[in-house]
């Protein structure tokens, strides 16, 4: 089997190439020089994207490449830019992509989330190309390898209907929850933004990062968007996860269910979060958290 890999970030490039190696031959497409990663693929198709051109407009460059290489599967990092590019490719090819993938089998069939993790579906692409959007963690144990022959590819300009006026970096909190070994998650049980101080103190005592459920970032704006855990946010695999004031809706638990050990603090004994917890405490978080800080200091 031959797998074509397209990813924006070095970590994803290495991970997707490592996963692709488990299926067979690996060919990497690099749309920018930053995407040329060595030692991970058999071939690296290095596209010389002209200055000012958006990578999403490399459609007419990739179509002939796909036609010539005839990959059996196309592994794509699910970033916004690449979902636009590969989605447009899918339209040209008459294919559909599969997203929210949990695992990939040897025949490139996949297990993917359905209804935000409520169920899992097994899907096999029957169209012209298996376009698989694969996020961080699916192949985290695989090791990439390759002899990396770099093949330069000329950029083929298509009709451009989108012009970029400006671009600006997003100032981030600097937190990378996907790399954290310990994570504290907060939900609606937290009454006020000022109470984050107590949570932060607890997190610092156990050397953890702080994440949250969707309403905490989307409705309350208490924490940055990149700390949202769950469907369409982060899917984490930390050693320790502590859920504080989180009811445990599927939309959130899908992002934490693969944690090694889960602790939950909630005053409602019927909160679904307890079904996901190794250790649960039915108590007011405002009583428990300060005591935990005191006890663990």
């Amino acid at each position: 089997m031959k797998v074509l890999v397209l990813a924006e970030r070095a970590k994803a490039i290495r991970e997707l190439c490592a996963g692709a190696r488990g299926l067979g031959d690996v060919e990497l497409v690099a749309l920018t020089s930053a995407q040329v990663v060595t030692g991970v693929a058999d071939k690296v198709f290095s596209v010389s994207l002209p200055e000012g051109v958006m990578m999403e407009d490399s459609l007419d460059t990739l179509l002939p490449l796909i036609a010539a290489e005839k990959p059996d599967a196309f592994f794509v990092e699910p970033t916004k830019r690449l979902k636009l590019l590969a989605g447009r490719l899918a339209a040209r090819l008459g294919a559909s992509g599969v997203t929210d993938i949990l695992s990939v089998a040897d025949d490139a069939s996949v297990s993917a989330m359905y209804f935000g993790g409520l169920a899992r579906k097994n899907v096999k692409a029957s169209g012209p190309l298996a376009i698989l959007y694969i996020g961080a963690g699916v192949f985290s144990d695989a090791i990439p390898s390759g002899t990396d022959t770099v093949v330069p590819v000329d950029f083929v300009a298509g009709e451009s209907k989108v012009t970029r006026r400006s671009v600006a970096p997003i100032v981030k909190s600097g937190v990378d929850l996907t790399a954290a070994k310990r994570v504290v998650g907060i939900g609606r049980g937290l009454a006020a933004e000022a109470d984050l101080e107590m949570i932060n103190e607890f997190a610092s005592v156990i050397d953890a990062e702080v994440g949250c459920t969707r309403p905490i970032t989307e409705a309350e704006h208490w924490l940055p968007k990149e700390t949202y855990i769950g469907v369409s946010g982060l899917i984490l695999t930390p050693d320790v996860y502590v859920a504080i004031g989180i009811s445990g809706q599927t939309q959130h638990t899908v992002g934490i269910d693969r944690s090694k050990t889960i602790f939950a603090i909630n005053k409602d004994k019927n909160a679904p979060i307890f079904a996901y917890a190794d250790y649960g405490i039915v108590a007011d978080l405002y009583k428990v958290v300060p005591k935990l800080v005191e006890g663990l200091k």
Partner: protein
Amino acid sequence: MKIVVCFKVVPDDQDISIKPDRTLDYSKARPIVSTYDLNAMEALAQFACEDGITYSALTVGAPDIDDSKMKKNVLSRGPEALYMVLDEALAGADTHQTAQVLAAAAKKIGADLIVCGDGSADVYAAQAGVQLGEILGAATVNAVSSFSLEGDRLVVERTLEDETETLQLTLPAVVSVASDIAPSRICSMKEILAAGKKPVEIWSLSDIAASVPAATLAVTDVLAPEPAPRRHEMYTDSDADIASFAKKLSEVLV
């Protein structure tokens, strides 16, 4: 200028239950508008309100999505009319199939600007809008956090993982908007009553000269996952229990 908001109708996931064999039971789940499409509807309602322009709503699906409450809900949110393409062949359609049928309907309507939501509640692929735009040969972008017209250009803000950008699109254009673009509204009684008087046009595939292409994905089974095995040790809020809970936490930290 003709403007259309596309949306998907899905079973209400709050009422989907899991059977003992871990398959899903949709029998109590009514058809509703997929959550993030409500944000797209609101974004367009605000856009149209400012400029005094009108727009319609479009969905495609199996005949069982034709639900009076769902239709009223959509029409309460601002569109002048609702178009629905209904055919049994659209049950469980993949994004390729959906986009092809949406494109045929959009052509019949003559849409210059199409707004789609972020992703659907069931598959959350965030691909139908992108594929629709490409099929129509329109300017196509996703992750849009705001949009406005400047003459015959659409100017959009796009929020990506690490950067934001301002883009200028030619028309026709298809934009897929982020779910946080606009919080969905609570409809007023006046809006709900007015919705009942708005036209709903139901089309068959032949009405829009479309056929459903062959499926490009084969779904073999859909099962609720077995939860990861957990210890389920429970504690109360007594001081002794809090101390034991803290001890368990300190044990896994080493």
